[in-house]
């Protein structure tokens, strides 16, 4: 039982990270119906930027906000420069362009930072040693990750549901043509959506870097788990993405331990199984809306 709880704690912490990146995917999918295959690599590159700041002697609590601002701006730039021209192109074209993003950021990171893993620090003020409650060890950083996720969700909820900008963002995503007619700058809203997604992805990257090592491919696996999370939660539901993320985190943690065949090597297979199962049984995911296909 102790072990089970321990696994759930770790799984949930990882799941929060998957949920964050899934959130980024969902924010973009909801507004532009694009699955951004480059999301993970954009997050990875942001994490490297953050590492550069830290390496240059900047404090954690200065480096991270600065990185997030840069990631936000980069997200907007990517949308406006690369995505907008192909927004109405066939799906294949868009998939290819986002794959181009994947390749580009991956190889650029390898080029600039080499493949040698870099140590990434815990946030200043978070202690390394764990607390012991009965037989269970609680790692402070896990709680920190959880707190970040909750805070971010609350902030996004307030932004989307309680502000005028949020109303515009939602309207532009749901009905671009009507939005234009009430005077919303739809293109700008979509770009903002990419910016927010890029920042959310960057948070996911920065949070996971201290746990796994920072190297150019470190987000690739996380991206697949995030795909599974977003699929499970529903690609058009931000809360679904987070719940899906936590579910996937636990499925992976528990599956790896209790299904002997899976072990630690084949955890990615679980992601594949979840993706395919969900798409087959309930394509809209747990929280998504079933869309009626029109001819």
């Amino acid at each position, binding site marked *: 039982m102790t072990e089970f709880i321990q696994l759930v704690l770790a799984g949930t912490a990882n799941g929060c990270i998957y949920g964050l990146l899934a959130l980024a995917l969902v924010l973009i999918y909801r507004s532009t*119906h*694009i*699955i951004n*295959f480059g999301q993970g690599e954009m997050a990875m590159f942001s994490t490297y930027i953050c590492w550069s700041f830290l390496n240059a002697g900047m404090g954690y609590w200065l480096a991270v906000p600065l990185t997030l601002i840069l990631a936000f701006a980069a997200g907007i730039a990517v949308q406006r420069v*690369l995505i907008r*021209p*192909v927004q109405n*192109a066939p*799906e*294949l*074209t*868009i*998939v*290819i*362009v986002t*794959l*181009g*993003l*994947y*390749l*580009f950021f*991956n*190889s*650029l990171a*390898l*080029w600039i930072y080499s493949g040698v893993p870099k140590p990434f620090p815990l946030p200043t003020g978070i202690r390394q040693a764990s607390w012991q409650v009965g037989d269970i060890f609680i790692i402070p950083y896990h709680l920190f990750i959880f707190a970040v996720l909750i805070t971010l969700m609350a902030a996004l909820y307030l932004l989307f549901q309680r502000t005028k900008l949020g109303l515009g963002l939602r309207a532009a995503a749901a009905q671009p043509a009507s939005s234009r007619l009430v005077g919303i700058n739809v293109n700008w809203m979509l770009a903002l959506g990419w910016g927010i997604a890029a920042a959310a992805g960057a948070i996911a990257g920065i949070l996971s870097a201290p746990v796994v090592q920072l190297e150019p491919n470190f987000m*690739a696996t996380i991206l*697949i788990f995030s*795909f*599974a999370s977003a*699929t499970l939660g529903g690609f058009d539901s931000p809360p679904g993405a987070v719940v899906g993320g936590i579910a996937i985190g636990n499925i992976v943690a528990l599956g790896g331990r209790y299904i002997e065949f899976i*072990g630690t*090597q*084949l955890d*990615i*297979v679980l*992601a*594949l199984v979840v*993706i*395919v199962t969900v*798409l*087959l049984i309930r*394509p809209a995911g747990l929280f998504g809306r079933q869309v009626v296909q029109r*001819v």
Partner: protein
Amino acid sequence: MELLRSLDYRRNWFLPLLVVAGLVWLSARWVDYGAIPAVGDLIEPFAGMAALLSILAIATVVAAYLLRPVLDRGPQAERALRWVGYGLIVAFFAFMPLYVELIPHASMLKMTVAIQFMIVIVGLNLLTGFGGQISLGQGAFFAIGGYTLAIGFREWDLPWGWSLLIAPLIAGVLGFLIGIPALRFKGPYLALATLSLAVTITPLAKKFEEFTGGVQGVVMFGKLGVPFWQDNLDRFFYYTTALIALLVFILAANLRRGRFGRALVAIRDNEVAASAMGVNVALYKMTAFGIAGAFAGLAGALNGVVIQFVSPDQYSVLLSIRFLVGAVIGGIATINGAIIGGLFQQFVPDVTVSINKSAPDAIQAIILIVVMYTMRYGVAGFLQETWRYARSGLRLRKPGAGVTVVETVVVVEEEVVIVRQDGGGAG
């Protein structure tokens, strides 16, 4: 004068840009671009590729001009010329040993691998280009081919010739079966599902150590016997691969032109309408997956034979992405594009790796995005468009023609498909 007129590229605005890039490339002899910080190293390969492309395009225009007397005789002459073109391509590959050393960076082995890429890409062109089914998972089938060979060799000492027959069967059946869940997935979801398939294959191969040799892989070096040319294995494997590729291309072209291809395009363009006309959508989609899988499996087995080594890390997810990138750059909805795609995937990484270990992927990414913006049907599509444009430009001066501008809307191999209803059954 007529030739110049045909170069009036109101549609093909991209060509002048290419010519400029070509000039930049030529000027590299005198100007040291490498001295320019940050991007200097990149200028030459990009300009070089653009130069190559513009040479191809200009050659296309010149050919359209020189062949005008023949072409003007009518569609039959045009068809005959097309066969001459195919003949030239086949001859180019057939006489490869004579001049392979003259081609920079080329060798018989590299050409062999390039042709194996072409085989995969042709399958992808059918599946994705004509069938509209995005697959990021062809690397998985390639791996299945490779492991069919390796396991056959390891466990039963199976002659590799048999593996070449079995591999496409296994990969084809698996592809066909994977087509079943794929029926439910659309667009980006399908890309997602197939991508996760590609990601899974490496850890699976590592897991089943007792068959696959785990991380170490299966070494077959020097143990695959050949009936002749024992002293020149490269040549033997090259011709084996090339011959198989020729058969694959003929098969693909026939599939494309026949009932299967028409049905596939109909499904891509309007699935509901196709289904309403009696096309068995599920069967055709699954068959397309099966064929693409079989081609990839065949190429994977061939690759194992030539490299004489199979290991999990050869089949990373990047391989799958490279196949799709090659298909897209060559021209996704064209059969001939596979030739360009295969050569591109073999030689561009090879040429650019000298800049930096990760330069090939970065350059590919940039080329990929540029191609998507400028040539949606890839290089093959671009050349086809250039050809048709040159042709229509040359026809401008026909006596008595009142219209001065012939605006041909060129849609490459995208002819409107009318599915015939006379067949009943599956067609």
